[in-house]
């Protein structure tokens, strides 16, 4: 079974994570989803710390959907950290947040965000957006990311 591209959801809101799961299902996107609840955990996951070292169980994601407002190291911290890691810095990170303040948008891009999306308020729009993401993942050419010898990704494109 070929490894599917994993999407890492970083969000402190249990509700929002649940909704994302629903939306992905509705959008008929069956890509595996991993979830972490704050910036600290996100960095641990991406760095392969502790439990997350098991790349079978916790594969490096193709795409990260990153919330900004989180306790214990927020989205900006994660962005900064990732772009500072020589082996991780190519990672595609889409900011996925409720805040649409200009200063936040600018800062996110300054810190190297791939894209900035605002969480829609209703389910229909959310589903549409996720469907769009799924399509994008299909057509986007993703860079290679060599986390360690056990490299579990490769696939770009469908």
């Amino acid at each position, binding site marked *: 079974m070929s490894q599917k591209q994993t999407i890492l959801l970083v969000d402190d*809101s249990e*509700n*929002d994570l649940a*909704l994302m799961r*629903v939306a992905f299902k509705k959008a008929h996107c069956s890509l595996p989803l991993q979830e972490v609840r704050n910036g600290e955990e996100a960095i641990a996951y991406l760095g392969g710390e502790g439990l997350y070292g098991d790349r079978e169980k916790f594969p490096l994601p193709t795409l990260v959907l990153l919330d900004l*407002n989180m306790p214990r190291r927020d989205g900006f911290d994660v962005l900064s950290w990732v772009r500072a890691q020589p082996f991780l810095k190519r990672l595609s990170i889409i900011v996925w947040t*409720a*805040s649409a*303040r200009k200063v936040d948008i600018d800062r996110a891009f300054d810190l190297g965000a791939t894209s900035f999306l605002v*969480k829609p*308020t*209703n*389910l229909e729009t*959310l589903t549409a957006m996720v469907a769009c993401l799924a399509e994008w993942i299909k057509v986007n050419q993703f860079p290679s990311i060599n986390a360690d010898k056990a490299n579990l990704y490769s696939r770009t494109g469908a």
Partner: protein
Amino acid sequence: MLTKIVSAVRDSATRLLRLGLSFADGAPIPMAMVEGSGHIVRYINPAFCQLFDLPKDEILGLRFGDLVPKNDQCLKLLDRVFRTGMPASHTEEEHSTTHPLFWSYTMWPVFVDKRPQGIMIQVTETAELREKTLAMNEALILGSIRQHELTSAADLSNAQLLVEMGERKLAEEALREAQAQLMDRAGQLEGLVIESTAELTATNKQLEAFVYSIAHDLRAPLRSMQAFSTLLMEEAGPALNETAKDYANRINKSAQFMDAMLKDLLAFSCISQQSVGLTPVRLETIIESALSQLEADIQRTNAHVESIGPWPTVLAHEPTLVQVVCNLVNNALKFVRPGVPPFVRLWAEQEKNLIRVWVEDRGLGIASDHQFQIFRLFTRLDGDKYGGTGIGLAIVQKGIERMGGKFGVESIAGEGSRFWFELLTCP
């Protein structure tokens, strides 16, 4: 201040001197007063005039030396008196006439309040020396008594002056002190103003952040409420009876409504908080932006929207003005009479340097008692009936006010309304 005091003292000295000299006026013995090292004649009595047989004016101002040119002795005496401040007298003989003449000079310095004013010169001829001497003595005695009195008076006057001076000095000092305090206070106040302004700016920033985070944080659970109530209806669909579906629907609608309110509140707060810099803005652009934002609603309600030019340029804040026009047109689309599609007309009028923009509709209209209410925050005259959050017109009010303009409405219930706002024109 000081010069005033000095001249006052000088005036009083002169006054006193004149008083003292009045006794010499009546003396039968020629008397003169000279001043300064040049011994300039400042005063002569009538007897003196008689002696020299010259009118007063011709003598006054002369140097005494010029008056008695051959008399070195006299002048030497004058100098001595001037130098030492001690009286002196001298007698000499003149043999120029048929009978012997003895001239006698007596000189003494005149002080007023210990200040030398000049030298008194008494001149007598020996022929009448004895009588004149007696008379002179009397005059002298009188004079010295007088002088004593005058000196006392001068002392008193001086003392008074000193007191006045002292008081004045105190007053001056008090004034200076007060001025210094005032400067201090002004400095303090300035400091306070700067501090307060800084605090206010900081507070405003905090407020902005506060409002933003509240709106932001509150919208998150609302998202969940909306979404999950929808999902509930989907999931449980068939299992839910009409009532249950109704309940789920109400939850959903409430969440949507609250979300809309938060969005509008955020917009309202934005307009209230942020600095509204005014620049020349083309009304045409504004109208276009607003109408394009409402494109979908215009289509959906089958509305007829007219925008009648020409559209001048005004002094405004572009995003705020777009919001204002948007809200006004949006209201026109919403508050319609049953069965009547929305009709909206926009145009501008110019009066001197003011531009008045009209937004007219043929909708519900507003009774005059309610016309001021509608601009209040959260006020919806018909409650839920026509949707909306009750913030739209509050935003219009706040926005126009912050741009320094005026606004108002003319309306007849059942016929329609004309909302207007005024802004300064920009040439």
